[in-house]
């Protein structure tokens, strides 16, 4: 079982990200479950959502306490909550940041993770240029596919298109593809950090 925790703020599409991830895993032929952390729903408030991907039906309902991957949609949450709860050195970490992660203030906290499993993508900037709105979730899902290989980009794209019809879907697919290529390229180059 591959367990994912998405941290972000209300309005950033955190819950949608987890849902789309589960749909993508389903398209890939896996079993998947996604659910929100059920916080009070308001713009800007911290939101957590979960996704489990497995080859067997997912039965457990507890929140993800030992994530295999953490997606951090908003770096300001680092000061608000313990986004690293239950992580290990081998947890994948995907950050929404215009700066390479090694240059981030407080980057030393990331030194506990395998550097091969940490990536940063400028998801908000990608979303602004591709979609026209600062909603980083689609780009992060593309980055997630490249970083973890837990879902395919094709499935992410199909999940996005099923949720958002027409041009909005296509723009989000473009955002996911751009982030995918950035992370993928970085992983296969020497200065691999994005």
């Amino acid at each position, binding site marked *: 079982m591959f367990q994912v925790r998405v941290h972000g703020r209300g309005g950033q599409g955190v819950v949608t990200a987890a849902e789309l991830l589960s749909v993508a895993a389903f398209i890939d032929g896996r079993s998947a479950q996604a*659910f*929100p952390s*059920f916080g009070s729903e308001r713009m800007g408030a911290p939101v957590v959502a979960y996704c489990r991907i497995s080859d067997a039906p997912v039965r457990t*309902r*507890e929140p993800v306490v030992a994530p295999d991957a953490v997606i951090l949609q908003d770096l300001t949450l680092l000061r608000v909550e313990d986004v690293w709860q239950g992580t290990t050195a081998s947890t994948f970490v995907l950050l929404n940041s215009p700066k390479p992660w090694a240059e981030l203030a407080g980057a030393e906290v990331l030194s506990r993770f395998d550097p091969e499993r940490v990536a940063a993508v400028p998801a908000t900037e990608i979303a602004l240029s591709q979609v026209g709105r600062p909603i980083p979730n689609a780009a992060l899902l593309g980055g997630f596919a490249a970083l973890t290989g837990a879902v395919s980009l094709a499935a992410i794209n199909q999940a996005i298109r099923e949720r958002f019809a027409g041009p909005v879907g296509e723009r989000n697919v473009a955002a996911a593809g751009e982030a995918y290529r950035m992370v993928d390229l970085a992983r296969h180059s020497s200065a691999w950090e994005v």
Partner: protein
Amino acid sequence: MRQIEGSQAVAEAVAACRPEVVCAYPITPQTHIVEAIGAMVRTGRLANCEFINVESEFAAMSVAIGASAAGARAYTATASQGLLFMAEAVYNAAGLGLPVVMTLANRAIGAPINIWNDHSDAMAVRDAGWVQLFAEDNQAAADLHVQAFRLAEDLSVPVMVCMDGFVLTHAFEAVEVPTQEQVDSFLPPYEPRQVLDPDDPVSIGAMVGPEAFEEVRYLQHAKLVRALEKIPQVAEEFYHSFGRYAGGLVSPYRTDDAHTVVVAMGSVVGTLKDIADQLRQKGQKVGVLGITTFRPFPAAAVREALWGARVVVVVEKAFSTGFGGVLSTDVATAMGPLRAPIATVVAGLGGRPVNAASLAALIEGSERGSLEKVTFLDLNRPVVDRELERMGARRRSGPSAENMLRDVASQAAAQEG
């Protein structure tokens, strides 16, 4: 199969049952269900259905009663305070023997206000005379609604399908959504047992004095007891129509040779099955008994499933304040005098995550007799003690809920610092 939100799957299952009147009043976490049905009525995908936005939950159930008495297939959904607000009408639907179907997206009851999941709402109306079915996952939630209409109309009793608020209503998972053809072959058009017809006028729900009230109530009881036979039959027929098993009275998992059997209702059953598998790998014989039908209570089926158990642990998302477990009491009664010891674990109140590790530790210790009669899972005892201390020290010690909320916050801050 579709990867779909629980509420959406239930909305589609309900729509496939061709309800003729749907009454809606929004309350979290059931809102997505009636919203989705409303959209289907608007687009014409659900034809011959009147979608009525009412002004309260009391009106929602009252309109459902009126519609059902006039011969329409009626549906509504609610949760928590909404259910309490309609409580009088909930009893009326049962007293009148009207086959209304309602989704209860289980949520805690205030005060203090809390929008999250537990089973206090369902427990508050367990004696109202409704059939109460509990869904373990979203496939069950969808399938139980199809069976609910069939049961309700066969027996002329109202049926409540309970699904955990947020945990199921807002969860995306794979569901085989019942198709229109399947449902049409399983659920015949509604043929009311009693109907208000201007051409053939009758009164229903008139005053009944002491001379017949007991008999009326006895008949209601007898009808619900008969449901214990009908429910497995309907589940069997459902299996033949849909090719998958759903519903029934109880759902045993690895109970045959189990020394410890954990009894529970709703979505926590899934977590418990994983725990049972884990503990079996360590050599402890653990099984799980999911209660699908809570009212009428399937005492014989429960007794049979628990026959070989040495210890019974009942995990409940509600309790009777000042006493203890509600389901536990029913389980104990069902097992009779020669029963194995029963321990109650109260868990998941007001949306508190049911932590699988803590729960597994409790169940692991249960065979050694380490469990108290009633345990509150992961109770933050220092915070409770601190408030008790405050209350002892000063008469005006302030509102307890707010005091404890502050203490929890400062506890968390101290841990981080």
